[in-house]
């Protein structure tokens, strides 16, 4: 019970942290951020591995197998595609601002 409560506390604090992490992100980076966090939730692959490893029943084994495939595709595809996007986001050179004459 105590451990469950601690997990719940982690959940609440991590939620606050998630809210704080995203603030004043330039529009330009919305898509890469979405794509990278998308890759991060691919951590569900961990769950798929556990399910598959603990499977005693062929049905669960099959389901777990599919879950691992899904998770791995989410992780690898997510990080890969984000990287492809970001390669093209070289930082803009600071420009000397002109004053209105």
């Amino acid at each position, binding site marked *: 019970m105590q451990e469950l409560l601690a997990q719940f506390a*982690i959940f609440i604090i991590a939620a606050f942290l*998630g809210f704080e992490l*995203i603030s004043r*992100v330039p529009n330009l980076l919305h898509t890469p951020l979405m794509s990278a966090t998308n890759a991060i939730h691919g951590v*569900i692959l961990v769950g798929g591995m556990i399910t598959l490893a603990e499977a005693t029943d062929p049905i669960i084994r099959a389901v777990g197998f599919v879950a*691992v495939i899904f998770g791995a595709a989410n992780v*690898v595809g997510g990080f890969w595609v984000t990287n492809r996007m970001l390669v093209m*986001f070289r930082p803009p050179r600071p420009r000397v601002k002109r004053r209105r004459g």
Partner: protein
Amino acid sequence: MQVATFLAYLAAAALFIVGIRRLRRPETARSGNTLAAVGMVIALIATLFVIEFQSLLEIGAAVLIGSVLGAVSAQRVQMTAMPQVVAAYNGLGGGAAALIALSEFYHAETVGSGESLVAAITVPLTILIGSVSFAGSIIAFTKLQELAFAGSVSFPLQQVVNALLFVGILVLAANAISGGAIIPALSPVASVVVVLVASLLLGILLVIPIGGADMPIVISLLNACTGLAAAASGFVLENYILIIGGTIVGASGTILTRLMSSALGRPLGKIIFAGIAAAGTAGKGDQEEREVNDVNAGAVGEYLSEEAQKVVVVPGYGLAVAQAQGPMRDLLEVLEAEGKEVLFGIHPVAGRMPGHMNVLLTEAGVPYDKLYDIEDINPEFPDTDAVIIVGANDVVNPAANDPEQDTPISGMPILDVEQAERVIFIKRSLSPGFAGVDNPLFYDREKTMMLFSDAKQGLQEVVEAVKNG
């Protein structure tokens, strides 16, 4: 070992957090993505110790298949298809969460291990959220890839149907948890399977009515949902990296969705509950028959090569759909070869995905330092001779500044192309864009030239005309 795996999970979580932090600034974004990926590798290796290297062969095979699928698709996809591929990966994650919860339930039922209250709540929750995310993402993918359900598909009583479906899911979930106390005919496992199917249906019905143009926002929301599903499955499996990683994605995804919808001026509530599909209005307008200065590519080419010295290009959504980045770069090259100064004005919401235009143009070989954002390009217009607007409308529509009009784009900062000497639109018709607001500039026959053409073809013709001119 347990302590070590736990600490490895914490290190992975820390890397996720630091990664997201770094993704907030263009200079550090790429390293942020890499750090998060390193965190993922650490989490996966730690998990091997958690499962004590059981079923390694199957896991290895499945990971290999998934990785290859992911890597190949990620490498092959065109930059214009970014939103749908993100949707696809997201759906896979949601599906995985649902499947994991399903098998945990089945396992507990068949082995007969006493279910804790937590699992009783989180298992159906994970199945619900995961399945909605899976099905919703698939629909989003289908729409964006233009495979089916184009535009906004509405059906009667959709709110009522969705509500009923949701209640049904709750009842079935309660039935599963209570061991069949509510509908004795349905066994717990059968109930959970029905919950899964009904949730898939709900996901489909929720996303189908939403217009394709709102999809980036919907995908971001589904992304947050998958994060939540991962967190919920963490409670099911009592796994800390799932709880932490999932929660952070769930929470940050929610905020990101709000940021995106406000950057686009589209209230989230409207998108989800009304399925108002502004994109559907494009091309259906009933414009009055007002005259425009309709020109051909030759005239544009002539003006550019003979009269214009400083040219600003404003690309929009139409450039992306027409895949006209190549001809765009060609035009840049021929104009520069003639000694013209060419700049690109990139509005932050040009296109259908934030950052879309920058990515497309840079990929096609337009130098990054020619891309100016709104604050930097606006002061350039007064001494610009020609603005070429390719497949864009909203981002240059002066109606946004008109205090008398109340339009979806009212108050949005726009590119002040009016200040330039001449304005050249390359688009297929007089139809407005995403927001469905008519553009008074079209009808300014003194200033504006309208080249009615597909963006790609039109640009190619203009390139030829400049070369020969």
